């Protein structure tokens, strides 16, 4: 596949002295034509900073970015109108109508009137806001505003679309609608870079995912390969009542792993007051696990049984949850 973006050893530091923060610490990767590339990581991991450096909105301290073989930090005119960014915060003007906001951007991107009208009509139709096109933004619902936010970056038909946390705060229905919209972008010939801290979002939308934490890429691969990399089997997540400390859980995990006769357990991960146990053919083994935990004077507060997720990959790599 054709490389669209090449990132090499990108670094960015903010602040000075004690307040110095190494936001991005030498990340490198390539993004290919018409793929959805996911950046998964907790808040503050360096996703948005990386994104802004990639498109030329933020100058890196070190490293190199090329988009279609050109440096976005050198004000190369041929890169203008190639990039579209869907930020996590609204990009519209509350006191203008839906249509006026789109026309404003069409003019800013210097799109001829006839072509702009066609695109605006098409985009409004794609997000189902035909009846609201002459409505002032502040009179739209939260979901309608988020849908509008998606298309503002597409008025100029960019080749590369950057979606920065597109779904926080959305109801499940709207979230699915946004996912469908993003999923459809490669079909229109676009390459998408998606940043998210929702593992499900990264999993369902991305062709490849880079898990990022503390400004470093921990792993980069397809969601399927990332999940399988931590082992086979299902997972049971056991949340213990009474908020026991993590250090008390370590002996419990060791005893479970060494249980006779063996269960056998593929892996046990501790995160805060939870144990995540992965094992093949897990369900028949569950009663024995729970009985053992009770016997060790722990009480089970909550229990869930599921397949491996990207969050498990993250926990496996960092010992923390994405949300923590």
């Amino acid at each position, binding site marked *: 596949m054709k490389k669209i973006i090449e990132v090499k050893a990108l670094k960015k530091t903010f602040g000075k002295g004690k307040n110095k923060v190494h936001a991005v610490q030498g990340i490198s990767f390539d993004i290919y034509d018409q793929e959805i590339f996911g950046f998964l990581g907790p808040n503050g991991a360096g996703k948005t900073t990386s994104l802004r450096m990639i498109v030329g*909105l933020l100058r890196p301290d070190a490293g190199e970015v090329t988009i279609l073989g050109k440096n976005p930090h050198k004000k190369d005119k041929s890169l203008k109108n190639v990039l579209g960014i869907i*930020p996590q915060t609204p990009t519209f*003007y509350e006191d203008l109508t839906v249509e006026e906001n789109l026309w404003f*951007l069409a*003019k*800013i*991107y*210097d799109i001829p009137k006839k072509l702009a009208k066609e695109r605006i009509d098409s985009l409004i139709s794609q997000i189902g806001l035909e009846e609201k096109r002459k409505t*002032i933004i502040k009179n739209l619902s939260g979901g309608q505003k988020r849908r509008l936010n998606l298309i503002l970056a597409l008025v100029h038909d960019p080749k590369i679309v950057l979606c920065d946390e597109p779904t926080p705060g959305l109801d499940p229905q709207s979230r699915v609608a946004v996912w469908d919209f993003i999923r459809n972008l490669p079909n229109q010939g676009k390459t998408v870079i998606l940043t998210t801290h929702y593992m499900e979002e990264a999993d369902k939308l991305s062709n490849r995912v880079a898990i990022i934490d503390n400004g470093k890429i921990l792993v980069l691969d397809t969601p399927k390969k990332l999940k399988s990399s931590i082992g086979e089997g299902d997972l049971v997540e056991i949340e213990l009542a009474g908020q026991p400390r993590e250090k008390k859980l370590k002996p419990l995990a060791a005893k479970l792993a060494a249980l006779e006769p063996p269960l056998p357990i593929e892996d046990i991960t501790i995160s805060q007051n939870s144990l995540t146990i992965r094992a093949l053919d897990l369900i028949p083994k569950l009663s024995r696990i729970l009985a053992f935990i009770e016997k060790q004077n722990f009480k089970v507060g909550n229990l869930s049984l599921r397949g491996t997720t990207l969050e498990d990959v993250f926990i496996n790599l960092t010992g923390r949850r994405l949300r923590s």
Partner: protein
Amino acid sequence: MSLRQILGISQRIGLQLIRSKWTIPYLIIFPVFFIGLYWFGFSASPIGENQTFILGILNQDEGIPLEIQTIFQNETLMGNWTFDQFHSGNVLTEGFGNEFISILTNLTYSNQSSSSLIFEIIEFTSEDQAESDLRDRKVDIVLVLPQQFSNASLELLNQYWKNTYGLYLHENLQSVDPTLPDFPVNITDNILIKGDEGYLNYQIANTILINVIDGYLDLAAVFKGPGGSITFTMNEEISVSIPTYSLFGLSIPGLIAFGIIIQPSLISLFFCMEFRSNNRTFDLIRLSSSTATTYILGTFIIQIPVIIGQAFLLFVSSLLMGFQPMGDIILAYFISLTILPFSASLIYLTTAVFSNEDVVGTILGFGGPFLGFMSGAFIEVPQIVIVKKFIPTASGIARDFLIWDFLPLTHTVSALRQVLLYNFNISQVFPDILMSLLLSLGYFIFSVSFFSYFRFWRN
């Protein structure tokens, strides 16, 4: 950068201005309220009534030998001309300078119940002493009558008489020779008035003095005397219209200039909406082929009608509240517009540094009065000289370049004062207009570069 992009920015800000509930009412009410507030506070008690101002005079007039015959050939000249020598047709030696000082010394507030003198005269023999006393406020104003004062006065009179004869020639005075030479000298070019423009007593005294000079230049009345002779009468009692300015009236030039420069605080609210740290609209703009210049020009297009309208309303409000301009108010209006680029530059400079429209609005809200004070719009400013005798003036003698002269507003206020209070014409205030415009454009260009680098491209 294209026109479509520039107009896109303009249209967006224009729509926001119109849609905002309070913007249009504010734009209309502000000038009326602003001027009205000063009118309410400072117009009640007129100042300068019956006040005697201390006028320092440096009389350098060398006088002029004059033979009546050279002017009027064989005509008989009669009338109540002040100079005895003039009446007798002999050589004039005293000069017009002393004559003028005599008029100034005896001027009274004839239109007032009191007959107190308008000026207390102190004559100086040295320019340094005059300037020193001016600085120490021992005198309110200094009038310098130059060496050629009599010569210039006479030439001006000749011109006046020639024009008058020209008028009469075709009626009754066929025998009078109309071929007097043209005398292009303007007496006001040679008179120098010195003082601190920010000093209230100077402002009032200057207004009166300018009126006296105008009256003096209009000194000859011509009428046909008995027996076909011509009588020239110099108005011994110069009719001086002494304006009863209040502090309100004297403040108007400063208020208008100030009113124009605080308008950016309003425009900035719409200009810098994108710059908020949590608003990424600006990212979309930066990713387009729009440049900082596109953005600034788009905003500037909106600022032009807003400031033109605001200046107009400020002038109209002033007139409606009783301000009586001494000079050309249309000229004053156009002078006030020279500050437009500077006004715009304040937005770009502020938004280049601050990204929250509330902060920007507050800074401009406080910065406007600060600039107003620094430019002497309201109060006298200390005389901090940067370059001595640098700025040309109507008198032909350059004045000192003060630290405040780096602000275009200083020159705008000065030019407005000279036109509105002292009835100066465009050629007389041209140096200040030019400085106001050039500095204003200079700040504009600098602010555009500053904004472009620190807001638009710095990342």
